[in-house]
């Protein structure tokens, strides 16, 4: 089985689905000839031609609006937004149109599309090449939100997302685009949207993470293992609709939970996760749930490692939570 990094796995998913289904088209800025600024669509232009791998003018609203038209017609477009920080010119199309088209047309029309976009910090990107806007889309009824952490999941989830009849926001953690290589089947396979994965079992405290922060959470879990604290690590993979069963089961077991994300704390997805945990596991909670997140500031450049909720911040939060006595 070939070894692939995240970029290659996503590329492989796109290529295999485009081979299988002529209704799948890719569009976005620089996705064609040059294969995307992160080279995720490399080779697709040569294989499938400029009708299926479309270099668009510089307008995210046009990319999503046109993709929505294609989806309404019956295609399965996979638009790319070059950085998720640049999704906002398309925000109206996404939240007012893509998310609501099925609902507002009484189910007459559907809007199947996968909006792929790199997300997250740690690549010296400053304000506008680092943000994690997932909670804005989770708040918008009608969108599924996926964020894989590793190549295998990425391919399986992307294939599911393209075949899904609902629009899916597909956030790609760019900090780990090339960080991890693992075995990924050349052939197609799917992983279910809506299923989290317990990537490390433990009895003492649950840590919920996704994307690039999953690796930080894992590192912390290993680190505190040395101190005899057993952390269970959940990789959410799908952010919305979230896999509540896996979360509840774990928190009922540990009674303690730490939630990690890069986005600012205020109204981040961590707030929703924390709230759901409290609503569903109140009597099981042995410690206050804790959020380890980006600060409530714009994303900084020089100090980005001080901004991100990395291992050095997750570890003490895990220890404190695991050892909390009321």
């Amino acid at each position, binding site marked *: 089985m070939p070894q692939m990094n995240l970029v290659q796995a996503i590329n492989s998913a796109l290529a295999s689905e485009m081979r299988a289904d002529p209704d799948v088209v890719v569009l976005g800025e620089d996705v064609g000839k040059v294969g995307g600024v992160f080279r995720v669509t490399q080779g697709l232009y040569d294989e499938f031609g400029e009708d299926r791998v479309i270099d668009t003018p510089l307008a995210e*609203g046009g990319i999503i609006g046109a993709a929505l038209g294609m989806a309404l017609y019956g295609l399965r477009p996979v638009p790319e937004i070059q950085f998720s920080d640049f999704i906002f010119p398309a925000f109206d199309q996404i939240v007012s149109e893509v998310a609501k088209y099925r609902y507002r047309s009484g189910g007459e029309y559907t809007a199947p599309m996968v909006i792929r976009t790199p997300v997250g910090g740690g690549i010296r990107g400053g304000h506008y090449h680092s943000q994690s806007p997932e909670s804005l889309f989770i708040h918008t009824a009608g969108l599924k939100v996926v964020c894989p952490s590793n190549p295998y999941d990425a391919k399986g989830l992307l294939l599911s997302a393209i075949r899904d009849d609902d629009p899916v926001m597909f956030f790609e953690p760019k900090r780990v685009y090339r960080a991890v290589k693992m075995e990924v089947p050349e052939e197609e396979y799917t992983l279910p949207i809506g299923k989290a994965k317990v990537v490390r079992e433990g009895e003492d405290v649950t840590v919920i993470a996704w994307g690039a922060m999953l690796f930080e959470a894992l590192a912390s879990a290993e680190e505190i293992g040395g101190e005899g604290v057993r952390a269970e690590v959940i990789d959410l993979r799908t952010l919305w609709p979230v896999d509540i069963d896996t979360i509840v089961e774990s928190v009922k077991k540990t009674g303690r939970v730490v939630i990690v994300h890069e986005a600012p704390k205020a109204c981040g997805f961590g707030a929703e996760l924390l709230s759901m945990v409290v609503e569903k596991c109140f009597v099981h909670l042995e410690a206050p749930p804790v959020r380890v997140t980006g600060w409530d500031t714009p994303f900084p450049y020089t100090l980005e490692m001080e901004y991100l909720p990395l291992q050095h911040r997750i570890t003490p939060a895990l220890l404190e939570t695991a050892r909390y006595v009321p």
Partner: protein
Amino acid sequence: MQTEHQVVPIRTPDNDSDGVTSVIRPDGSLNPETDPKLPLETVLDLYRSMVRTRVIDTQLVRLQRQGRIGFHIGSLGEEACILGSAAAMRPNDWIMPCYREFGALLYRGFPLQAYLDNMYGNADDIVMGRQMPDHYTGKAYRFGSVSSPIGTQITQAVGIAWAARYKGNDEVVSVYFGEGATSSNEFHTGLNFAGVMKAPVIFLCRNNRWAISVPSEKQTASVTFAEKGVAYGIPGVRVDGNDILATWKVVRECVEKSAAGAGPFLIEMLTYRVGGHSTSDDPRAYRVQDEVEQWRRTDPIQRMRTHLEGRGAWDEARDEAYKQEVETELKACITAAENKPKPELGTMFDDVFQHRPWHLEEQCEALLAGPRPKSEH
């Protein structure tokens, strides 16, 4: 070098001259140079479609005033440009509406009852009472879903057209919007994408002179709306939008060219919003009655009727009979719509996604378990 462009002052059909195509002359005769020479039955059909639209419009405003429906946004005075353009689209072509084009949807065969059910948001409403009145949809009629946010349908139309061509289908997409919408992000992006993609889209700008209370001269400093096509390499065309034959002709020509590979067209249809913006608006607060009266003189229905009567093809008796027929049909639909129940509670949670996820199941159960609100509104 200053880029030059032809200066075409905004004209009413009254002072029409070069630059704005029209067919029906003030005396009702047709300009032989522009007359599309449609069979009489088609001309009568176009005329009746306008009358039907106006009868319905008038009645809906009345229903809103009586508190029987919540809202209506109508097409009073704009019937010619809406019906003429809709009729000029071929059966396989698509129509992406703005919000004043219920006449176009009915013209395509959408049942009047279904439209009324939408106006009442009842259990039979095609959108299950989810949207405001006049936010219909008609996929079977190749007609998009009405949305309130201005302009969003424009880029979507480009995607549909692109997809149709990609699939090798001979289909052109028309998309309606007001002149106010030319200021929107989506107008710019839609026309730019269409120009680059050479997508078969007919951009139909209803220049009815007003965007709620903002007159068209405050909307843009360009001399016409058609010339905005220059920015996208798209031919801009102006037509007397109160002349249904002229509208039909210009739109049909563009559709044929577009289908043949000529790419997109931008058509500015000169018309006038005779009524308020919607039933929520009273235009006396911001415009003078004189202007309205001037435009009433070019009423698209009256112009067409003058023509038909001159031809001996129509008369007062037939007009009354036809209106009566529409009114009877309409009354029955209203009664039926009013007697239908509200949509079922659970439908609120359908179609957010294809399948209800756990959280919507949970919320639906909570809602069904009650309690119920004290007031209906």
